[in-house]
């Protein structure tokens, strides 16, 4: 297929090429992150100087910030973006298993984003009941100020987003299982691919209860059912929704966490120049944590009317999850040992993300331990904890990956010095807004308060909010500069000369940068080694080369090449 035959629309808009779709996801996610960031800046302003926003506007912005960052930034960037851009390249395939479904997945996502933005502007305003959508509040049109339509559109947007991610997930699983190139057995898969696979499976298995819950909630709003609402005549059960929500909600965190860990696991070996310390351990701990993630959902409901005996088991499983995760973090840390660490921009980001994951993981324990959680539940401690995990996932790890794969995807370079300063400033401002939350939580500051002014025991902490808000401004400004630079570099950055600038081993670095349509031209890659053959000995070492690419490119026979051409 020559370029002349392909219209611009087909090539860039309704493309079925996994790389174009991946970039579309990436840029759409970036755009949504901008909106999510602006919302954060706005409601943090209200916390520093209460009264800037109305009470319901404050909650509306908080609600949309959370939902956007989770469903319209973290998922599209880490799965839609990184997944699409990397899976075929890393497994030596020419595209995804279902290219058309892939395109459909992206455009469903776009529609979901449009519906979400619309829901914000309809009469009555957008939904304000928090990203967890708990009924009865979410089911009662008069709970706020008549935002009936906004609520319905909000639920619809979430449903569409899940549909989009489901299409993507099915595609990821099919592609990874069936389209690996010759020689690429499961235990030779790059860790990023393992993480994408586990994440997709978790999403598939966990999402249905929430879709059911959202449907029942819509029925409560529209059709006069009382699944979750209570009146004198009808006794629904509000807690049922929480079960449906968190059965999805907890695995969902791992759906975005695993790809983020995958990014770190790719960047570490390439920049320490030694193999990953224990590849299989990381895979197995991820699988075990994934299984456990289905047994812990009610740890969000310890003080929400669940049976006190079952709470014991939920707490035990939750605390038990710290074991596989501490093992995977230790294994990642051991991968640095005896390395020769090059502090490139992606490496600085990856190390930063790794360090923040330590904080995020440890601070989960006071919440998982149920008696301590009686006090911490729904306080700023929770807010701080999940920002140390989710911000680390959606921002730190994702940007680490952007710096690392940018030359591959766009054929251009990002400035190294810029990247390192970007990382350092981001880490400082991020801790400046997130860390004080632990102290506010310890002081008993409930979350989702538009202001702490009504409570005497909190008065002395107003200055902490001011500090957090200033940090948020600086953090946002830093990312804004990066976003501008990023877009600029896509079009005007310095072209890369070496398609493998990091001297990395995995297959994607064998392809040209950027890879052409169908990735491999008239060659195809065959895998001969484990994914992280760094610090090799023998012949290569004598030649001054310290890495062995995972595979080699073989020129296709002419007949095969024609066949490929037709399929494309």
């Amino acid at each position, binding site marked *: 297929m020559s370029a002349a035959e392909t219209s611009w629309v087909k090539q860039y808009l309704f493309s079925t090429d996994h790389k174009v779709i991946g970039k579309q996801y990436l840029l759409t996610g970036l755009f949504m992150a901008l909106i999510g960031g602006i919302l954060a800046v706005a409601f943090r302003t209200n916390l520093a100087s209460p009264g800037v926003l109305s009470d319901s506007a404050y*909650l509306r912005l908080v609600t949309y910030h959370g939902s956007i960052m989770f469903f319209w930034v973290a998922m599209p960037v880490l799965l839609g973006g990184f997944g699409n851009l990397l899976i075929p390249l890393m497994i030596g395939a020419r595209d995804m298993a279902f290219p058309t479904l892939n395109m459909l997945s992206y455009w469903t996502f776009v529609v979901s984003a449009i519906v979400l933005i619309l829901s914000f502007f309809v009469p009555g305003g957008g939904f304000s*009941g928090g990203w967890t959508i*708990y009924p009865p*509040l979410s089911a*009662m049109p008069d*709970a706020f*100020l008549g935002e009936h339509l906004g609520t319905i559109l909000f639920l619809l947007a979430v449903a569409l987003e899940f549909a989009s991610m489901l299409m993507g997930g099915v595609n990821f699983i099919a592609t990874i299982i069936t389209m690996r190139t010759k020689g690429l057995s499961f235990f030779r898969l790059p860790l990023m691919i393992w993480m994408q696979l586990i994440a997709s499976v978790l999403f598939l298995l966990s999402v249905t209860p929430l879709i059911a819950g959202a449907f029942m909630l819509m029925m409560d709003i529209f059709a006069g059912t009382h699944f979750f609402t*209570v009146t*004198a005549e009808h*006794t*629904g059960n*509000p807690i049922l929704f929480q079960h449906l929500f968190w059965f999805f909600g907890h695995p969902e965190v791992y759906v975005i966490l695993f790809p983020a860990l995958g990014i770190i696991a790719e960047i570490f070996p390439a920049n*320490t*120049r*030694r193999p990953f310390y224990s590849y299989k351990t990381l895979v197995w701990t991820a699988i075990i944590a994934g299984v456990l993630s289905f047994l812990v959902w009610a740890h969000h409901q310890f*003080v*929400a009317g669940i049976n*006190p005996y079952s*709470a*014991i088991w939920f*707490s035990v499983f939750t*605390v*038990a999850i710290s074991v596989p995760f501490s*093992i995977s*973090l*230790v294994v990642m840390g*051991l991968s*640095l*040992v*005896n*390395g*020769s*660490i090059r*502090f490139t921009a992606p490496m600085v980001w990856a*190390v930063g993300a790794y360090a923040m994951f*330590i904080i995020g993981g440890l*601070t989960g*324990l*006071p919440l998982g*331990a*149920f*008696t*301590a959680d*009686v*006090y*911490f*539940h*729904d306080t700023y401690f929770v807010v701080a904890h999940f920002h140390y995990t989710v911000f680390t996932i959606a921002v730190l790890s994702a940007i680490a990956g952007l710096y690392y794969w940018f030359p591959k995807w766009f054929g251009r370079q990002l400035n190294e010095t810029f990247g390192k300063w970007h990382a350092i400033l981001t880490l400082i401002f991020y801790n400046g807004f997130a860390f004080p939350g632990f102290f506010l939580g310890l*002081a*008993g500051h*409930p979350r989702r*308060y*538009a202001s*702490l002014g009504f*409570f*005497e*025991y909190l008065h002395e902490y107003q200055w902490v909010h001011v500090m957090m808000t200033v940090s948020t401004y600086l953090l946002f400004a830093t990312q804004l500069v990066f976003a501008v630079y990023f877009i600029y570099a896509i079009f005007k950055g310095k072209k890369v000369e070496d398609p493998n600038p990091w001297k990395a081993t995995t297959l994607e670095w064998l392809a040209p940068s950027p890879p052409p349509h169908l990735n491999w031209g008239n060659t195809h890659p065959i895998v001969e080694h484990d994914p992280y053959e*760094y610090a090799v*000995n023998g012949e290569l070492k004598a030649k001054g080369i*310290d890495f062995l690419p995972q595979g080699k490119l073989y020129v296709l026979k002419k007949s095969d090449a024609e066949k490929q051409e037709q399929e494309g």
Partner: protein
Amino acid sequence: MRPLRATDYPGIDLSIDIVLWGIVIVGIFSFIILAYGLWRFSAKRNPVASRTIPPAFRRLVFLDIAVLIFDIVLLAVNIYFWADLFIENDDASIQERAAAENAEVVYVKAIGRQFFWTFLYPGPDGQWNTNDDIIRGNTLVLPANAYVAVDITANDVLHSFFLPNFRIKYDAIPGINTRVWFKTTREGKYEIACAELCGAGHYKMRGEVEVLSQKNYQEWLQQVSGNSYLRYASLTTQGESTLHNNEQNSEETE
């Protein structure tokens, strides 16, 4: 950092202390090792990487074992106090505790509503549904040195009954009664916060706990008794039906 503790029941604070000290120690240790590793194995100090790692570092897997042991201790402590607070929270268990300390038991019902709390007392005779029942808006008056059993519910949306000074929190859920207990120790005024998003006024939903001396409490009780349900019904139109619902529910569970 925690607000002044107004109870001598140590369970929740102890659980918090253990877990916080644990994660602070593990965290600082991890960060020191990480910083050392990044310095020691930087390309400058270690120009050639090696595929093996020194045995000393392999011992870091003991960090995982430390985490495991810490988890077990943590869970044991938490389960012990959890059972105390939320499993043995029936009338008999609370009375037993109170008798051991020669303390009084006070029964209260707390009903959350956008955006205030309503408290019901059985009144001086200790019997529910009698003429001396008491109803109070937003201020929970209690005697010092007493065990307080609070049955919590809500009659519109979810709320959460949070007493920072007593370290107690539990959601108020329409259609469901939940029970928490806590022990009052010193006299004073303390705040009640709502900890579950309940609408635009969530952050304004402030209540008070007023702990009086035994003598003042008895006086107060006599003063306010006998003004119950009629007044409650006038406070809210929907209130009465939900209130009766709640009572039926609680009778069924008893």
